[in-house]
């Protein structure tokens, strides 16, 4: 809601009855006291006007003393001030809440928000730079309807998965196109400093994104960075420092606790007459030895999760200066950030520099130059979190004098000294004797292997294997705009994006196994992406008809030069180059060059009549090198229309409550070509062999080894989508509401279609399938309270999306496989991917129950199925046979709906913002359920487990070694609710009052504290520690193989303190 504040410094004089002309001076500032330049000041009812200078000052000569002045400026609520003979004014303008007159960046141009006919969401910069966030994409969480941001991993610098209105691709990349200052850059969100960002726009429907043609099908994220405004130099320093700690850990038992459990269970079985004596006590010699080590040799259990983690920190300092004259404006900023993950050896450092200059070279020619170099260095831990909590606690991190002496009994480990990393193997092949939890004394019958892991301890691997990624990026652009005529401008823009990534892995000797020689991998990829865009802009109004037109031609060429060198056996572990490596790994050392090209023509016409009836049409054609000649071109048209109903005269009566009503409708076609390069060609790969006497000589070899068979005729995916939108503004736009409903259908789906392995590969590229996405979105913004000293606003967004697979290469279904061969089924007529397997009906609680089933003639193809304590499978088709015919869909990785609520409260200098965000109705596969080594130690997975017929537990939790749970078959036992609600962010700030700053040169000072991931709740069936964590590497990069979680990395909880100073 609008809050007007009018202050007078002059005396309140009585209004004179006679009108005379006076000269008025004044200053216009925003509510922080910052001057606003360029505000238009008009005498109401005339065309007489002036505008404010860079200091926000204006001087108006010879105007009636009783005139009403109208102050307007983009982004601020227009204000009317009755002069009433005053000659000096201070006017405070309030940023417009309704954003109705806001300008929205769309592809290749901007449009007034009131003239928008597509579905576009916008987030303004101050929503980004007031909070402490390390990455731009993280700042978008929960802010916009229809955009989901999934934080798959809490590792520093890791990329989240972004989806706009669901996914419309199966085998091609389903993430949105990211455009930074006009240049499509796939990793744009990872390096742009959030504090350099002016606005982020999300193009959701095809009418908006079709101007990006073949890359628009999964939506477009447009990032616009800050530019200078004509003003005196304005400096800004923003800094924050924060601490991170893990929110929650896995409930892992140590060896003593676990052994106690085993003894308790043995005691229970001893009291159960159905258990044969031989099966009562199942505790193995290895388990007993482990207990002895923990209690009598190493002495204290190691909490491997704690070993993995640390108190991490994050800091960020950003300094910027902007300003300029009317004809030359600049914005320069620098940014340094260090972000540590809570897991050791996880860190991301980033240094940004940004400079942009806008110059009016003449009245007709404008020049913009911008340069944004960044440097990023990311350290990634060599082992994942799972490896820590699966490790048994009796292994110490390093040997004590006592344990070293103990393992020295084995001649092979005679060299082990106190302080050396302990390994499981050091404790094998020894005799153990000691007291058991039940008080008995136990001596192992000969040598035993308490923990037969051949892996080194995770921390010793992590300490000896360094993984660093160093990335240099440079984005630069030069735009020339020339006004050919008053209504016709031509713009030519040359921009380049250069990225140099070097991923180094240096592994010291004995890192993973004893006898490992040191080795190094240096993988570099240099990408040069050149974009040349030429656009012709036309805008013309005659009468009440307003036209704007756009014609464009763009060429983009991307060349990636990648190389990798793998070498081993340097004379010292200290080398971080391969110059001294005695061996170079010939198989893994290579270079590749991949050129990609895109040529496009585009055009758009916007027309409106009286600003009420809006019509827009666009067309783009793309030609891409990803497909063979003849299949390269695609046409992507779009149309949209809008009707500003509230501007109609018949709506005048409702103006007092319904201040805005707009109808929008759009239809368009977009495409997707993001698959591996040259997928249309049958490529040959290096495949050498050795012939000849002795150890042979390596001979050249070639073979068609591609795991995905080529698709010679593949072409664009095309997505047809329609959007209907309604925008409401109530009570002078104090409450605004947007509702969008959409349907999109992707045809010619680029599919890695499953095929018979007898072809030599089990998948091939095909263009045969359809997916439909339907949904609706609500965005609501409300100014709940608007007093002079107190202001409370709420933004709410809600998005619901349903997808359905309509066609799949003419087949009824396709199975895709994860790491445990768990099936992700794409079944026509159902959501495009679902978990597929067996439904369980509790567990077999007793042998009697098993015998009864067998007597009834039940059979099963599943091995070791008829075991008491094992999972019992539902015979879905009722044929008495448990076989693959009984598999059904068990869940889907998509949420039914997502939502976010941001509340913002301002009281005097204080501000408080908090964001609650959630996802409801999806499922995930909990891979930990199958990960036997850690599963038995995890209380969430062993509580109330089956022990014997008389002690069946809860009747649902299987005994860990029993039955098909160990068979890695997917059952609903592993399916959990993925719903969550996060109190994502709480931000409390205090802006120092102006009076404190008057004697300093400071314009404003804000102090704040932020807490991220303060609290979360999950679905009841969820047994993990991070409902967002997902595996996204290897096969899980595919949009259809999703929803798998194993070893969820703990959620990071961050507390940050920040200081923003402007002067």
């Amino acid at each position, binding site marked *: 809601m609008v809050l007007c504040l009018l202050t007078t410094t002059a005396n309140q004089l009585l209004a004179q009855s006679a009108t005379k002309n006076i000269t008025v001076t004044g200053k216009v500032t925003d509510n922080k006291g910052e001057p606003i330049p360029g505000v238009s000041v008009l005498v109401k009812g005339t065309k007489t006007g002036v505008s404010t200078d860079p200091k926000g000052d204006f001087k108006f000569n010879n105007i009636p003393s009783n005139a009403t002045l109208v102050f307007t400026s983009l982004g601020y609520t227009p204000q009317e001030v009755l002069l009433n003979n005053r000659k000096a004014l201070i006017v405070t303008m309030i940023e417009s809440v309704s954003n109705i007159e806001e300008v929205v960046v769309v592809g290749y141009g901007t449009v007034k928000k009131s003239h928008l006919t597509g579905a576009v969401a916008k987030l303004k910069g101050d929503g980004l730079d007031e909070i402490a966030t390390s990455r731009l994409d993280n700042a978008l969480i929960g802010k916009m309807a229809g955009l989901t941001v999934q934080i798959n991993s809490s590792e520093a610098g890791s990329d989240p998965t972004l989806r706009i209105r669901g996914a419309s691709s199966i085998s091609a990349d389903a993430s949105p196109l990211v455009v930074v200052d006009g240049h499509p850059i796939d990793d744009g969100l990872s390096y742009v400093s959030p504090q350099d960002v002016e606005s982020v726009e999300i193009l959701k429907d095809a009418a908006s994104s079709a101007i990006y043609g073949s890359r628009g099908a999964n939506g477009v994220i447009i990032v616009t960075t800050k530019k200078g405004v004509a003003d005196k130099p304005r400096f800004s320093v923003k800094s924050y420092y924060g601490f991170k700690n893990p929110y929650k850990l896995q409930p892992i038992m140590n060896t003593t606790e676990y052994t106690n459990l085993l003894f308790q269970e043995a005691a229970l079985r001893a009291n159960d007459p159905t258990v044969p004596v031989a099966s009562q006590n199942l505790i193995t010699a290895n388990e007993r030895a482990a207990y002895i080590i923990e209690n009598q040799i190493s002495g204290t259990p190691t909490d491997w999760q704690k070993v993995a983690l640390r108190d991490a920190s994050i800091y960020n300092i950003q300094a910027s200066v902007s300003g300029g004259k009317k004809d030359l404006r600049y914005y320069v900023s620098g940014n340094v950030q260090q972000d540590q993950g809570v897991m050791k050896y996880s860190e991301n450092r980033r240094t940004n520099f940004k400079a942009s200059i806008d110059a009016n070279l003449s009245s007709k020619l404008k020049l913009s130059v911008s340069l944004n170099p960044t440097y990023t260095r990311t350290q990634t831990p060599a082992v994942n979190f799972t490896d820590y909590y699966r490790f048994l606690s009796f292994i110490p991190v390093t040997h004590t004098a006592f344990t070293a002496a103990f393992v020295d009994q084995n001649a092979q480990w005679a060299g082990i000294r106190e302080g050396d990393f302990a390994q499981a193997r050091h404790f094998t092949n020894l005799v153990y004797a000691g007291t058991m939890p039940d008080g008995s004394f136990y001596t192992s019958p000969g040598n035993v292997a308490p923990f037969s892991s051949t892996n080194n301890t995770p921390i010793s691997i992590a300490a000896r294997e360094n993984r660093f990624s160093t990335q240099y990026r440079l984005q630069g652009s030069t735009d020339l705009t020339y006004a050919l005529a008053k209504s016709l401008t031509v713009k030519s823009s040359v921009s380049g994006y250069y990225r140099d990534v070097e991923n180094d892995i240096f592994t010291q000797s004995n890192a993973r*196994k004893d006898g490992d020689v040191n080795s190094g991998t240096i993988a570099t990829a240099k990408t040069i992406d050149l974009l040349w865009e030429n656009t012709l802009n036309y805008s013309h109004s005659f009468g009440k008809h307003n036209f704007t037109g756009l014609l464009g031609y763009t060429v983009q060429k991307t060349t990636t030069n990648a190389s990798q060198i793998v070498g081993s056996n340097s004379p010292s572990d200290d080398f971080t180059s391969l110059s001294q490596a005695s061996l170079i790994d*010939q198989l893994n050392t290579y270079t590749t060059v991949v050129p990609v090209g*895109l040529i496009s023509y585009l055009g758009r016409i916007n027309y409106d009549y009286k600003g009420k009836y809006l019509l827009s049409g666009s067309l783009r054609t793309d030609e891409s090198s990803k497909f063979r000649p003849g299949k390269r071109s695609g046409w992507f048209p779009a149309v949209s229309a809008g009707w500003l109903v509230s501007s109609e005269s018949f709506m005048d009566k409702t103006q007092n409550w319904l201040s805005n009503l707009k109808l929008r409708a759009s239809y368009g076609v977009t495409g997707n070509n993001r698959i591996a*390069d040259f997928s249309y060609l049958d490529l040959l790969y290096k495949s050498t062999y050795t012939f000849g006497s002795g150890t042979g000589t390596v*001979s050249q070899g070639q073979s068609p080894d591609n795991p995905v*068979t080529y698709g010679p005729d593949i072409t664009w995916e095309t997505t047809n989508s329609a959007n209907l939108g309604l925008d409401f503004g109530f009570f002078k736009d104090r409450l605004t509401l947007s509702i969008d409903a959409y349907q999109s259908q992707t045809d010619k789906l680029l599919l890695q279609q499953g095929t018979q392995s*007898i072809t030599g590969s089990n998948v091939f590229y095909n263009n045969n399938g359809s997916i439909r996405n339907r949904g609706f979105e609500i965005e609501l913004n409300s100014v709940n309270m608007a007093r002079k000293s107190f202001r409370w606003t709420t933004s709410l967004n809600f998005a619901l999306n349903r997808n359905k697979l309509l066609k799949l290469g003419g087949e009824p279904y396709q199975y895709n496989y994860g790491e445990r061969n768990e099936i992700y089924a794409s079944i026509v007529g159902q959501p495009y991917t679902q978990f597929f397997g067996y439904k369980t009906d509790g567990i077999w609680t007793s042998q009697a129950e098993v015998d009864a089933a067998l007597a009834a003639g039940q059979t099963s193809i599943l091995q070791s199925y008829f075991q008491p304590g094992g999972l019992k499978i539902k015979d879905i088709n009722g044929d008495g046979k448990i076989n693959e015919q009984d598999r059904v869909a068990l869940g889907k990785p998509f949420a039914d709906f997502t939502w976010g609520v941001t509340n913002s409260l301002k009281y005097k200098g204080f501000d408080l913002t908090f964001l609650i965000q959630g996802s409801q109705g999806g499922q995930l596969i909990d891979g930990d359920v199958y990960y036997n080594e850690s599963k038995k130690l995890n209380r969430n997975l062993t509580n109330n487990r089956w022990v014997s017929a008389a002690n069946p537990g809860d009747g649902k939790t299987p005994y860990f070694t029993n039955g098909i749970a160990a068979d890695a078959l997917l059952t609903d036992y592993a399916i959990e609710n993925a719903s969550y609600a996060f109190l994502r962010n709480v931000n409390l700030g205090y802006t120092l009052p102006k009076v404190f700053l008057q004697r300093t040169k400071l314009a404003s000072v804000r102090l704040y504290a932020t807490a991220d991931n303060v609290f979360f709740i999950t679905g009841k069936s969820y047994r993990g520690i991070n409902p967002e964590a997902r595996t996204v590497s290897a096969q899980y990069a595919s949009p259809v193989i999703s929803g798998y979680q194993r070893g969820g990395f703990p959620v990071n909880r961050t507390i940050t303190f920040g200081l923003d100073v402007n002067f």
Partner: protein
Amino acid sequence: MKKIKYILITALLLQSLASCKKVVDVDPISNEVSSEYYRNYSEVNIALTGCYNGLQEPLQNEWMLTELRSDNAKQRSVSSTTNANVELNQLNLYMASAQHQQIYNYWLSTYKNIRNINYVLRSLGVTYQNGALVYGTPTATVTDAQKATLIGQALFLRAYHYFNLTRLFGGVFIVSQPLDPSLSKQVNRSSVADCYQFIVADLQGAIANASQAKYTAIPAADLGRVNAWSAKALLAKVYLTLPTPRPADALTLLNDIIANSGYGLESSYANVFSINNEVNKEILFTVRFKAGLVGLGNPMANSFAPASSGDAIVNGDGSGFNYPTNSINSAFRISTTSFTDARKPVTIGTYGASTTPYYVNKFISTVLVKNDAENDFPVIRFSDVLLMKAEATGYDGAAGTSMGIINQIRERAGAGTYTTGSFTTAFYKYPAVGTGAITNATDFLTALLDERRVEFAFENQRFFDLVRTGQALNVIRAYYASEYTAFYGKYTPVIPLATLQANINTDKLLLPIPQREIDTNNEITITQNPGY
């Protein structure tokens, strides 16, 4: 003025349009395209080299499907619940289902190489129609001699793969030319007889086309390539394996090899496997590996070395897979006072003081970097040719040819001439008469199988030998019984011996067709092997 400006801009644009066209006309720079390859001898020969490379990958799984399902190998740990161990347990216990990952890996990597081979054969104009090979016009420019040598090698490699597939899975899918994914769902399983007809045709083609040079006349650079002798030896084994064996045809081939090939026994068993003596005269065909990080290293050294042995056996620790059973360990006759079987130390090593100290030593050599050993993996050795001859000949008396061959093999391994003593404590040749003499066909079969077992231990022969001779069920059941107390009885939950023995039956001697292969095909019904 204004006009000139427009003209200039238009001209610039038009020119740029023309020059930018090449931005999308790009070719792969780092790879050849198959349609533009296979044009001449050199290129087809390089592609054929790729097919040899493709022999390596299936071997990483083959031992799991053969040795681990015989009485030679078991799993080291009954209590391990890691996925890899659980999968291997299932094979060892005859409990693997059609979804078994390792079975599928073998299937896929084998068919992958069959694809590679079919690309080569297509370029040479070779097709398989109505049960016979048809030699058409090659698309590649090759001389007749070049064509023959390429065809001969490729056909052998294809037959080698199909022979393994047919022995493991029964009737499989015959794919004799590059198969388009869109047509692949029309191909169903063929009968075992049809598969063998295909295999025999390929091997006869290989014999007809491949080099006939004697071992000593093979150019040094061509050692390790397939030749007519390799093909004859493999065909002999096929003849012995057929549902209706053809021992007479096998014998003809074997006698030809023995008389004319120039191949022969190495003087000592250790020499056969020495990395300093690769492709020796005993090796009729081998899958070659090469150390030195050239991408051709053998991972078996690290797979088979004892788990948690650190760098005691090989650098980078071992996994302890393909773990030798007590049964195979005691099959070697070792005496402290008399003759001992020299094959044992070559075959089985011991490490540590545990009760389970064994590991497969045959393919272990010093490695600098993990999974990069030099050792080749022999497929057909001359001693196999000799023992096949004994098998094809059958029992012909205690002093007959067949017993002579067995004794020849034993003598090379260090067996002494029997005078007095126990066959279970020392290592003797079988005498013609008296104690230890083999006097009937049943004992002969046992002696032959025992000899093959120790001679070819961990060369993935034992399982096929047992199946071929109809001995698999009783031998493996007896083996389960012999190691039940020490090992199999310790699984939790306990598997009763009777259950364990019942797990293995005639059906289970064949592996299941991977479920994925059946699931993917929605056009025709693929019949699963019985028992799965």
